[in-house]
């Protein structure tokens, strides 16, 4: 056994860890070289992408303020020069007036399109409105309007007589811009009670059923429809039509529509005409096998 005096240092043997493990490309197999090459390429690509992302992020961050101010300045430099409108009945002047666009100095970018859309759609005649900016200086306004199927003769607060229009959804509105001839040709709606709501009127229920009758009459028997003056919902769900040929014609809603009842009415009118009876008092079309007809001379 070797006994040694205590010393501060002792010689250290060479360990396997002293063997140099540096890899030289020449000493690598082709597989390993490819492996190392692709690994380094992958790392390089990741590093480049990361650096690029950081650089772009930093640039965007630094330029945010500049971009914001540039947009504001650009906005100031984009005055509204043109308004393009698209509508059925309402004319361009009404739209400009309603939206208060007849002023100078309006800025296209500062217009509140949401508020303008809401303002348009608050008017009952307008079903929906779309507004869009068309850079650099144009505002595009597209309006889809309601189609009236009947009119209502009512009195306003001053007891003046006014004509209101009703569409198939039962929405009641004061029609603007309609051709008076077209309005006159619409049948008047009767037997209903108008209720005011938020400056307008509550929708009339059942108008979808009335619309079916009027549409079928207009397409299947236009000569009859032209003579219809009043459509009454007083006997609802039956619909009473007052026309030149019959003082009252009573229709009953059926799943198949009103085709059969219109045909029966047409036949009765033709039959009476052939016997020189131009107007009857009442035709009840609600019975399936018979159609009671009351002649005017019998009515007291």
């Amino acid at each position: 056994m070797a006994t040694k005096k205590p010393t501060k240092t002792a010689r250290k043997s060479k360990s396997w860890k002293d063997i140099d493990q540096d890899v030289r490309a020449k000493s690598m197999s082709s597989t390993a070289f490819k492996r190392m090459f692709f690994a380094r390429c992958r790392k390089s690509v990741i590093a480049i992408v990361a650096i690029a992302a950081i650089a772009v992020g930093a640039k965007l961050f630094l330029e945010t303020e500049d971009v914001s101010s540039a947009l504001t300045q650009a906005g100031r430099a984009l005055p509204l020069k043109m308004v393009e409108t698209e509508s059925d009945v309402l004319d361009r002047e009404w739209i400009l007036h309603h939206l208060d666009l007849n002023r100078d100095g309006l800025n296209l970018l500062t217009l509140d399109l949401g508020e303008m859309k809401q303002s348009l759609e608050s008017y009952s005649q307008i079903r929906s409105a779309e507004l869009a900016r068309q850079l650099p200086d144009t505002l595009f306004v597209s309006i889809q309007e309601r189609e009236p199927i009947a009119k209502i003769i009512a009195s306003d607060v001053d007891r003046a007589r006014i004509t209101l229009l009703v569409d198939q959804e039962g929405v009641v509105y004061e029609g603007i811009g309609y051709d008076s001839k077209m309005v006159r040709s619409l049948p008047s709606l009767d037997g209903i009670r108008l209720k005011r709501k938020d400056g307008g009127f509550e929708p009339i229920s059942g108008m979808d059923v009335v619309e079916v009758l009027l549409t079928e009459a207009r397409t299947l028997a236009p000569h009859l429809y032209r003579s219809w003056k009043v459509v009454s919902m007083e006997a609802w769900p039956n619909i009473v039509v007052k026309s030149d040929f019959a003082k009252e014609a009573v229709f009953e809603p059926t799943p198949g529509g009103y085709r059969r009842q219109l045909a029966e009415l047409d036949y009765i009118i033709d039959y009476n005409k052939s016997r020189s009876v131009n107007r009857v008092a009442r035709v009840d079309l609600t019975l399936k096998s018979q159609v009671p007809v009351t002649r005017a001379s019998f009515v007291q």
Partner: protein
Amino acid sequence: MVLLGEIVEGGSLNIIGMGQSSSKGVLKGDIVDFHAASDCAHAAILSAEDQAGVKIDGVYLAVSGSDVNGFPSEASVNVTPAEGRVSQEDIDQVSDLAKGRDLPEERVVIHHLRRPYRLDSRSVEKPLNLEGERLEASYWTVHGNARKIGDAIHIINGFNLHVDDVILSALAAGSVVASEEEKQRGCLVIDIGRGSTDYAAYQGGRCVLAGSFPLGGDHISNDLSIGLRMRLNQAESLKHRYGSAIVEHKDKGEKVWLNNDFEIGDRPIRLWSIEKIIELRMTEIFEVISKKLGSLGRGERLGGGVILCGGGASLRNCEQSAEGVFGVPARVGDNGTMATGELRESQYSVALGLLKYGLEYQSKLETTESNAPGLFGKLKGLFQ
């Protein structure tokens, strides 16, 4: 062979890939053709990586071969008189002195296997703060040829991988096949490879002696080839089909067919001759180990018996041959504590042992370097 393991949450180990390749460019455990050995090792690494779907970060390399040797190195110091108790400084000093034995220039240390300290001639495991006058430290230093170990490392480096640790094959295998109780009672782990045999002797729970010598399964095939006049591949086949480490068939008239294909050239071989040749070589291998162990190889110091592993351990009656030489029970190692299925076979003990070493090494690193999360997520094992 390459085994690829991954440390999962909780510090347990999952084996996620395995790659094998034919052994070329290696003779008796030494690299004789760098390119051929590189191709084989790289193919095995690639195969393991492909199977696991991950890239290897680092490698634990097992070494063996004719050039790995060991020697005892001892030193003693007087305990600092002022205190009369062993200080940490005393322990460090005596350890450094014991490890400081000069080696020839071409040799490098692989392991310093520490044996129990001796304090005033009594064996102590941890001498710190114990009273005494003279402290002795003893190490078994395992060393190898720097150039040959460098060659093995450079093959791994050639795949652009770093070798994290180098471990003697038998030590790696012993960590898997020997139980703690066997190590405590004293046991011997023998790893019989193709070109060399490694051994590791355990006492008191720690490895106290280990080494390697150039005798292995290839020598048995070579003996059969020369002794029975046949080609080497025929001898190899015969060894696998009829080989036994002891003579089982006493009837000298019993014969087996050389090729067993009934073609021209096939001839009968005496079974007794085959078994006798193998028995002699196996006995020689065990006797070499016994001689190298000296007093450690006596039966009374091997209470835990002999544990055999490696490809050579698959030879029939290998245990009986070892029992005959060492005079203690012998068994073939089982990797059941770490693996299931095919990996339980003793030929995988070394690779599994490397993974276990790696796991313990990683655990230590994670304890001391807790600020490096994820850096050592994986560990890998490789042996030739």
